[in-house]
């Protein structure tokens, strides 16, 4: 009788262990992962047919002066000020491009549609957008295409057939590689680390965590994941959770990943208030302004995101290439000035490249 129970107990524990090993880290999703090569070689892009939309009877404007309007989600915030600067930089570099940014002061899809509609009526050659809603924005973009206006999105996509190209700022496996590589560099190849995320089911965060688990297993096999904790998108809760992790693991804990722009500064604050700067590394996704205090006092060394100036810059180059006929459906890459050749992925998306790491040296150049 007792033997049977112990056996059953052992089996239950054993099967539990196996199940945990299969699902990698808590907070990741179960979708297939595609970790990048450890040396950063570009992964082979799976061929996918072009699925964008094309303008109807667009005039041939190759090399001629063009008028372009950029309608981001909203104007007047640091992030879109930075993309707008990139667009203006590219326009200056390209010459013969008259680019301006205009849009709603709140991230409101109705207002954004009104802006787009007005610019379509007033007559422009190209539209750049960052959609407040992928579906709701589609009809007005299709209207632009039907009038022969070239349409390129960046930052936030629409449904693919409503624009020609979308400049994708970062892929999940790229972010994952950058996060894990930075942690390995700062905390060591054998570091034990924990993760502070929003919730276990938030789609983007779950995808990043799954990709991080796959990349770590492949490229930094001796690092050790301890646990993932949830902190919603709540500043104080994130701080409390990170502090509890520090208290729980003591000296064993060498690093904390922040998976949201709320969790990362709060984790940095927890490390800072806990007097652990230098002994616990914080690596995470965050915007530069929130991280400046910690980066400037050397408590945080790497903040992973993309460079919004480069994003706007690439979007302008992609639009010019589409207007000039240099970027046609089926192309596998496109030239984007100082950024070099950018890869075409997922049918009609242009990949900006590897994520950008903000450090003490460069973080002062950004204001968002």
């Amino acid at each position, binding site marked *: 009788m007792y033997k049977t129970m112990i056996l059953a107990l052992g089996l239950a524990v054993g099967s539990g262990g196996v199940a945990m090993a299969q699902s990698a880290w808590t907070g990741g999703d179960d979708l297939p992962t595609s970790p990048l090569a450890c040396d950063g070689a570009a992964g082979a892009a799976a061929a996918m047919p072009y699925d964008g939309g094309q303008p109807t009877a667009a005039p041939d404007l190759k090399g001629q002066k063009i008028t372009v309007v950029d309608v981001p989600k909203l104007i*007047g915030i640091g992030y879109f000020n930075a993309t707008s600067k990139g667009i203006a930089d590219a326009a200056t570099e390209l010459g013969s491009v008259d680019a301006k940014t205009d849009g709603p002061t709140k991230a409101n899809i109705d207002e954004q549609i009104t802006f787009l509609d007005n610019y379509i009526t007033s007559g422009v050659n190209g539209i750049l957008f960052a959609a407040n809603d992928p579906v709701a924005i589609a009809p007005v973009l299709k209207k632009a295409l039907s009038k022969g206006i070239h349409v390129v999105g960046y930052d936030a996509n629409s449904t693919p057939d409503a624009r020609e190209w979308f400049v994708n700022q970062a892929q999940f496996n790229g972010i994952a590689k950058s996060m894990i590589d930075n942690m390995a560099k700062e905390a060591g190849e054998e570091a034990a680390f924990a993760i502070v995320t929003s919730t276990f089911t938030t789609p983007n965060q779950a995808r990043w965590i799954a990709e991080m688990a796959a990349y770590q297993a492949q490229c930094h096999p001796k690092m050790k994941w301890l646990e993932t904790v949830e902190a919603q998108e709540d*500043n104080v809760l994130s701080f409390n959770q990170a502090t*509890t992790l520090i208290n729980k693991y003591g000296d064993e804990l060498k690093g904390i990943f922040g998976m949201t722009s709320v969790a990362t500064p709060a984790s940095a604050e927890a490390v800072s208030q*806990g007097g652990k700067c230098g002994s616990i590394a914080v690596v995470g996704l965050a915007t530069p302004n929130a991280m400046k205090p910690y980066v400037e006092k050397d408590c945080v060394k790497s903040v992973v995101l993309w460079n919004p100036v480069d994003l706007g810059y690439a979007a302008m180059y992609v639009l010019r290439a589409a207007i000039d006929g240099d970027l046609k459906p089926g192309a596998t890459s496109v030239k984007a000035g100082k950024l070099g050749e950018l890869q075409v992925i997922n049918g009609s998306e242009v990949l900006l490249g590897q994520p950008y790491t903000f450090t003490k040296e460069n973080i002062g150049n950004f204001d968002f």
Partner: protein
Amino acid sequence: MSFDVMQSRPSFPRRLLGFVEANGQEAIILAAIILLFVVVGVVNPRFLGNSNLTSIFSGNAYIAVAAIGMALVIISGNIDVSVGSLIGVLATIAGTLAVNGYPIIVCWLAPLAVGVAINAFVGFLVAYVRIPSIVVTLGMLSVLKGGLISATAGAWINNLPPEFMLAQFRPFGVPAPIYFMVTLTLLAALWMRYSGFGRTIYAIGGNPDAARVTGIRIERSIVCVFMIHGFFAGIAAVLFATQLQVIQSTVPPNLELTVITAAVVGGVSILGGTGTVIGSTLAAILFAAIGSALIFTNVSAYWLRAVQGLFILATVLADMARRRRLR
């Protein structure tokens, strides 16, 4: 045959109820806290480490402070579901003043004044216009939340001056929020117990008609209760705003629920008339400790909500049963 057994010995729920009546909800919560600390402390001794105890008490003191005001409101027979939004707004006001160079004392006191003013209006609508408090505060919740998002566009407040960070002060090595939590709880408890106005609040919540007959000016008292609640929300907001280097300029998710739960589980009858602020503070500490314990025992944080919900149900059921027996 089992009938005889029950005759001779009260059933377990009966005995538990008897214990509650004799020792009060506060004793049960205190026992639960001690039990939790012992059990989790055995599983992982670091749980009882100095830094973890500090973060449990200090990191959640603002909830306990807000729950004091909430307890008064509920004892008076009302409720406030907008307190989370109010704290979000007041914290943003404090931070905005601080980064614009106003004297620190102004930054600390302005949220108190604004909290009192806003809740004076809420109390007026409840007491004189006679709109049920749940409706008024539900409206306030949306007004404050929407207003905050419109006014700040979600921009965070950075670069707060160090001398503003009240919650990070550590007089004699103990974080300032703990002093606030303990002092305010004790003062409020004594005041509720011995002052005339404290007894008035119990009277209004327990039996408004009887209170009116004895000459209590109910309307004015209710406005006062809401104003006091606004004052405590202001203090909570300052502690909340000064914990970290940034203020999010949003409403902390589910904060009102956490505050109401602390008050109710701490023994404040949701029907008004009974309860103490010592209970609400103990309950706030209990939930903070549970949240930390879940991490130490590798249990998903989702359980915190479930546990909070169970506590509410159990407390309200016990309250109902108690009232039925007294009747």
